């Protein structure tokens, strides 16, 4: 197990390296540069600016310099947000994005797993069909439709929660964004749980547990739940990517100062270092999440062997 974990952690390094390299060259191949504005700058000023940021050097030199900076945690200065380093920008936004994303995943699990289990226990009844119809809708309704609808209902119609805004992270400003983001997660987790729970409930050891007279809730709790959670756990890696995409939308709709917007703005503005910083940080987070999901999987499923 420990050996497996170490080899997986070492395996992350080449993956990240390839991602960084690909992203670095692809973004620079895109037409236009950070200093192309509506009103063209005088050529000598543009040349000076480019020299100041090292953009006048050959691309492989820029690449090596970027790697060198990266190796001691320096993402470089932002090209567009003057006086801010990329590290500062991301450090401001990331905690907000992360807290919303993690809360959404947690909420998704806490609601999705019981929902799926419930549907599986009531297989082929009206309750099952209703639950699965709601879940099917949840998978299909994108969060840029859900989010404004939540704003209308809870913000404008019933005036229970603020429509948008942040106010230094008060809980009531977080409820709607997290709900909007977790909507899709609940649906996915519910569907996965139902499918695997159905399979587990048909297995021999569950029949044995029932035969020896355990009450149904104990059969589920002690015997069925853990193996039924396996597909959900392996979905957690992709779930993180899902949350990243969703947070771009949710942060826009609710006007939250998260880091998601830097990706889009950075790409439009050709703010190379900002886009790269986002890719490195988010890429690492995703790779780490995948790793955690894999290790969790092994811990939950004693049948997995590491050799």
């Amino acid at each position, binding site marked *: 197990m420990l050996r497996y974990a170490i080899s997986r952690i070492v395996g992350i390094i080449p993956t990240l390296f390839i991602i960084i390299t690909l992203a670095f060259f*692809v973004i620079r191949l*895109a037409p*236009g540069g950070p200093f192309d504005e509506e009103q063209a700058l005088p050529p000598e000023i543009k040349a000076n600016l480019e020299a100041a940021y090292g953009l006048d050097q050959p691309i492989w030199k820029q690449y090596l310099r970027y790697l060198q900076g990266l190796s001691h945690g320096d993402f470089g200065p932002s090209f567009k947000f003057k006086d801010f380093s990329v590290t500062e920008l991301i450090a401001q936004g990331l905690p907000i994005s992360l807290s919303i994303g993690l809360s959404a995943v947690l909420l998704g699990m806490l609601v999705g797993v019981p929902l799926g289990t419930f549907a599986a226990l009531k297989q082929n009844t009206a309750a099952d069909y209703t639950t699965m119809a709601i879940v*099917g809708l949840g998978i299909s*309704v*994108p969060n840029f439709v859900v989010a404004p609808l939540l704003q209308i209902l809870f913000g*404008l119609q019933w005036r229970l929660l603020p429509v948008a805004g942040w106010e230094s992270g008060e809980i009531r400003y977080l409820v709607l964004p997290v709900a909007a983001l977790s909507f899709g997660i609940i649906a996915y987790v519910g569907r996965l749980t139902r499918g695997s729970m159905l399979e587990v409930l048909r297995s021999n050891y569950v029949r044995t547990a029932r035969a020896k007279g355990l009450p149904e809730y104990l059969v589920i709790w002690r015997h069925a739940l853990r193996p039924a959670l396996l597909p959900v756990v392996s979905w957690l890696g992709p779930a993180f990517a899902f949350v990243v995409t969703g947070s771009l939308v949710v942060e826009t709709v609710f006007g939250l100062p998260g880091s998601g917007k830097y990706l889009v703005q950075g*790409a439009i503005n050709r703010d190379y270092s900002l886009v790269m910083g986002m890719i490195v940080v988010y890429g690492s987070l995703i790779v780490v999440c995948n790793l955690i999901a894999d290790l969790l999987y092994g811990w939950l499923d004693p049948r997995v062997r590491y050799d």
Partner: protein
Amino acid sequence: MTEVAARGLWADAWLRLRRNRASLFAACFILLLTLFAFVGPHLSPHTFDTLDWENMTVGLGGPNNHWLGTDRLGRDLFVRTMTGVQLSLQIALLATIVSFVIGITYGAIAGFVGGRVDDLMMRFVDVLYSMPYIFIVIILSTFIDRANIFALFAAIGAVGWLTMARIVRGQTLSLRNREFIEAARAIGVTTPRIVARHIMPNVLGPVVVYATLTIPQMILFESLLSFLGLGVQEPAASLGSLITEGAKEIESALWMLLVPGFFLVSLLVCFNLLGDGLRDALDPRER
């Protein structure tokens, strides 16, 4: 020994699909909506970009034949939504086809050649997989002239082949050494016939299922990009850009969100239902 009339895989699948009423309904809905999206705009006296200054921001069933109301500039929402459905469907289809051609070729090569080539090719896929798709798409979208939405989606399709490649590779690899292939060889069936009768149907099933599930993903992606301001540009309309406009007007003109939202969600639901139905129908292992 009595001869049993064998039903082919597709006839069998059709039979099973026909029994699944939800999928059948979904298929009909998709067909009808596609047809209507192309015919509907001709029934209305308006076009997607004419401005009706007398009737700005009118609601459902508005005057002057604005059946689904108008937006802030008095553009007819019915016609805009229908052209939006057209655009979203075309883009999704194009992206799906591109991702298919690449995915099938890549996966088949990796599966057939095997060995170190396979390792290397699939390792590359793994690396790309660890990036959120949206990152790659956002970077690509900076590359391409935004007026040419089809070029953008051909490009998105070109990144979206990863899952397809995995499916085809897995299928090819597992089929190559299966007993029924060996059995077919043993009784002297020729290679082209083995490919046509035994390999193709087994690969095609998952491919068709995944195709049906890729189209809604692409529709969603187009909408997402338009929402982020990276997709369709004014005055053209896609479902995503209409929803974006609508989301800004929820206080004064709720229908501007609900109308395109309804069509987007029902399209997505139907494609997902159809995909699920096809999976049940085409996967012979899950009877």
